[in-house]
């Protein structure tokens, strides 16, 4: 259970890290908290000669709230997200989701950037980011660019990030309305069997807008526009909720594995989505 040999680098700026990434090309990987990468390295499922540790780059850390815009540095840990007072009011879904990731030790090390850049369908934050219509900020040899979370995930472990780019931050607007992240897992510390991220805006008893994204029910997170549309303009009647659940069921593509048969995952997905809609609506 010891990783294969590599050279270690600890740059102290984004520029220096990008330079290392472009110098070594495919032979380099960045490490954030290491709590997805190191287990893979120990299993010898990775193959690179240079590890670039981002821990000393201060520009990648911290949570900023400017009016309605929230920006979270890639190296911000799940633990920091859970304990951030401003975020608790501005976007409580972040702490609710982070608090359901893994266990305390993993959350002290695991970062938001690592969680969304990883590309593992089991990661919880990508679905949350799609639900919030977040923007991912990338920095590479050619400068910086942005990609929408909803356009970022191509397949399991394949994302829109180029190999010589670093994800520097994510940003999104303070969600308008009630939010909820509901996750079904086999035990503490497990990835989701199914999870749902929901934001619901309400006015005078009617739902004015809704956004719904699902975790670990396909090889990418699934933001389901149709499911949100099924709720918008309704009074969130049982029929409207079942229409949203139906739309979600058509959008996901769960596979049978050690978390259960695909039919069971569809059942769990419907349960978590109903619960998340109820919780988000109650908070709206």
């Amino acid at each position, binding site marked *: 259970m010891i990783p294969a040999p590599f050279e270690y680098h600890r740059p102290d700026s984004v520029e220096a890290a990008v330079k290392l990434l472009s110098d070594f090309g495919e032979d380099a990987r960045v490490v954030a908290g290491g709590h997805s990468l190191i287990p893979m390295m120990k299993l010898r499922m990775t193959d690179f000669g240079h590890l670039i540790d981002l821990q000393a780059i201060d520009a990648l850390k911290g949570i900023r709230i400017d009016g309605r815009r929230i920006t979270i540095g890639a190296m911000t840990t799940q633990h920091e997200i859970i304990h951030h007072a401003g975020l608790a009011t501005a976007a409580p879904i972040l702490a609710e989701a982070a608090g359901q990731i893994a266990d305390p*030790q993993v959350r002290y090390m695991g970062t938001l950037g690592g969680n969304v850049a990883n590309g593992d369908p089991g990661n919880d934050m990508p679905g949350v980011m799609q639900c919030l219509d977040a923007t991912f900020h990338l920095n590479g040899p050619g400068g910086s660019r942005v990609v929408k979370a909803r356009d970022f995930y191509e397949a399991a472990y394949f994302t829109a990030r180029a190999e010589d780019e670093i994800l520097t931050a994510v940003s999104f607007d303070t969600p308008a309305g009630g939010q909820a992240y509901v996750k079904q897992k086999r035990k503490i510390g497990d990835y989701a069997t199914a999870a749902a991220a929901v934001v619901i805006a309400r006015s005078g008893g009617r739902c004015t807008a809704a956004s719904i994204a699902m975790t670990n029910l396909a090889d990418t997170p699934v933001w389901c526009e149709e499911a949100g549309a099924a709720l918008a303009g309704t009074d969130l009647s049982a029929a409207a909720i079942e229409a949203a659940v139906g739309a979600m069921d058509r959008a996901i593509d769960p596979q049978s594995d050690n978390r259960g048969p695909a039919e069971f995952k569809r059942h769990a997905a419907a349960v978590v989505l109903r619960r998340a809609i109820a919780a988000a609506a109650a908070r709206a």
Partner: protein
Amino acid sequence: MSKMHITLTVNGKQEELLAEPRELLIHVLRERLSITGPHIGCETSHCGACTVDMNGKSVKSCTVLAAQANGAEITTIEGLGTPDSLHVLQTMFREHHGLQCGFCTPGMITRAYRLLQENPDPSEEEIRYAMAGNLCRCTGYQNIVKAIMAAASELNAVKEAAQ
């Protein structure tokens, strides 16, 4: 591959050593520094037996590279108390039967130490949530929770008396 010069402060003592960057912190502690309090239970980031305190965070030292830890301040169970002068948590684990075989105990106590730094008066539910990264095959957890609650009230009583 070349070795790295690594500096660590472990239980208040400065340590310098040469290690390959790929070595895991748990191996550096146990095999190079003979600090054998942190145990290897699973080596796959699940059991928490290897928990140490690194820069004020509870971490699983089987999932930290020696290179990542370079420059860090680390506390292990050895730094919390000694046989002659036990930490309150150690005393309470003994009094409340918070251990049986003892294999998980160094990780449990090191984790509970950080919990009480952050939340000096946790509820039972908060303790269970905060200890979820540490597995025990023996106790059924009930007495571990009791021991941590007892340690919290003891520490708070001492603090109040000092004021």
